[in-house]
């Protein structure tokens, strides 16, 4: 039987390698050419999961033209257009303004941005990645869809209060590598804490919407769209029982160790983001998650 004859070498392959071919066909790996800013930016864009929030997929909106409603305990946000359209998008934003939005949570008009745009995580992205990201966005087709105002409950809708929030919770600045740790751990931390902004959902929030850093990655019952978000620390109540390949496979195709499949917000994260990473990057995430302090 053919399967029997061929199964041996196949069985030695880690599954992420066996399955990687299909993913690679859709998503070319980011080339490292110095002038490949757009291609590198595409990879940053995917690792940071920008598409889902800024696209009204259900309403048939154009990619990145905004308009998706994000329902939160503080009200409903309508995401803005981030295509290069000069009037309705970010076509007129300078590179400095673009970087300030991520680093300081500051809009082009100098007003503070709501942290529903996860800049408390994105502030840790490095300058070179932000420049590549902008190059990628500017290479996308402009769409003239106007922005919709948010629909927020006072006092959370008061933009002028945001600097206070930022003073409490925002620690601006890129993440520096920890020289005491191996490169895959550092890469994993960067992917989890900065680009993948995993803590935005997996870390519980206090009553002001700031992260409860003492319970980092311990999960919360009040996630996006009312979803329960599980604990992803290596604890009994978390994913301590998952093997490294269980986690890597989950990030690649969404399967839990019992054969069930992730749903809700995480399915979208996997579809738009983690399934599109290189197998090495998924493994780096696993290394970092396994190193988190367990929270029970």
């Amino acid at each position, binding site marked *: *039987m053919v*399967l029997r004859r061929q199964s041996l070498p196949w069985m030695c392959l880690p599954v992420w390698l066996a*399955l990687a071919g*299909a993913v690679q066909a859709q998503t070319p790996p980011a080339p490292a050419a110095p002038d490949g800013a757009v291609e590198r930016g595409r990879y940053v864009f995917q690792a940071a999961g920008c598409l889902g929030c800024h696209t009204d997929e259900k309403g048939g909106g154009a990619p990145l033209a905004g308009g998706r409603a994000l329902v939160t305990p503080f009200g409903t946000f309508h995401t803005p257009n981030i295509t290069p359209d000069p009037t309705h998008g970010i076509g007129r934003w300078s590179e400095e303004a673009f970087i300030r939005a991520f680093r300081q949570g500051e809009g082009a008009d100098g007003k503070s941005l709501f942290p529903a745009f996860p800049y408390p995580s994105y502030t840790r992205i490095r300058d070179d990645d932000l420049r590549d990201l902008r190059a990628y966005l500017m290479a996308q087709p402009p769409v003239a869809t106007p922005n919709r105002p948010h629909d927020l409950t006072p006092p959370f809708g008061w933009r002028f209060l945001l600097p206070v929030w930022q003073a409490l919770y925002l620690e601006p600045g890129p993440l520096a590598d920890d020289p005491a740790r191996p490169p895959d751990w550092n890469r994993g931390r960067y992917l989890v804490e900065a680009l993948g902004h995993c803590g935005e959902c997996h870390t519980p929030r206090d009553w002001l919407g700031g992260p409860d850093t003492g319970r980092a990655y311990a999960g919360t019952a009040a996630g996006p769209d009312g979803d329960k978000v599980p604990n992803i620390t290596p604890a009994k109540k978390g994913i301590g029982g998952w093997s490294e390949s269980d986690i890597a496979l989950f990030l690649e*195709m*969404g399967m839990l160790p019992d054969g069930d499949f992730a749903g*809700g917000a995480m399915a979208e994260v996997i579809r738009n983001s983690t399934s599109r990473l290189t197998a090495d990057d998924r493994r780096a995430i696993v290394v970092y998650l396994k190193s988190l302090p367990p929270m029970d």
Partner: protein
Amino acid sequence: MSISARFRRAVPTLVLASVVASLATAIPPAAAATPTPQEQVEAREKLMKTMGGGMKALTQFLKGEAGGPAEVKKAASDIAGVAAHDPMGVFPKGTALGVGDSAAKPALWDNWPKATGLWGDLKTASATLVQAADRGDKAAVAAATQAVGKVCQSCHEEFRQKKD
């Protein structure tokens, strides 16, 4: 089936569709006539678990952790066997969140064409998986496992609520 096939020639499709739809809500299909909504939820969760077991066996085999060709074939036919069910039987009306421990979002019924479309995708993808397993084609089984998994995930993304 044969009755509707005979009618199809005489009755315009739209009228037929609405007749079938109203019949389906008025008279539940024979198999579902007795069970309570709670039992229907349990039956669905059992079918889903069967598919979960199949996906687990397939990926364990792919990872080289367990199983051989026989397990791969069984897993593929288990999944295809569930996919062969009529989606109306798997997702009868009145079995959304709140009934038993159902984790099915009401959106599944509000967006029924999308849900049945995904069930159709599951049928197609699992048929390909069965063929790949029967041929013993390792690369094709890996690709088909991934394709089936995409369908599982798409439906759960939209229509399934996280429990506990």
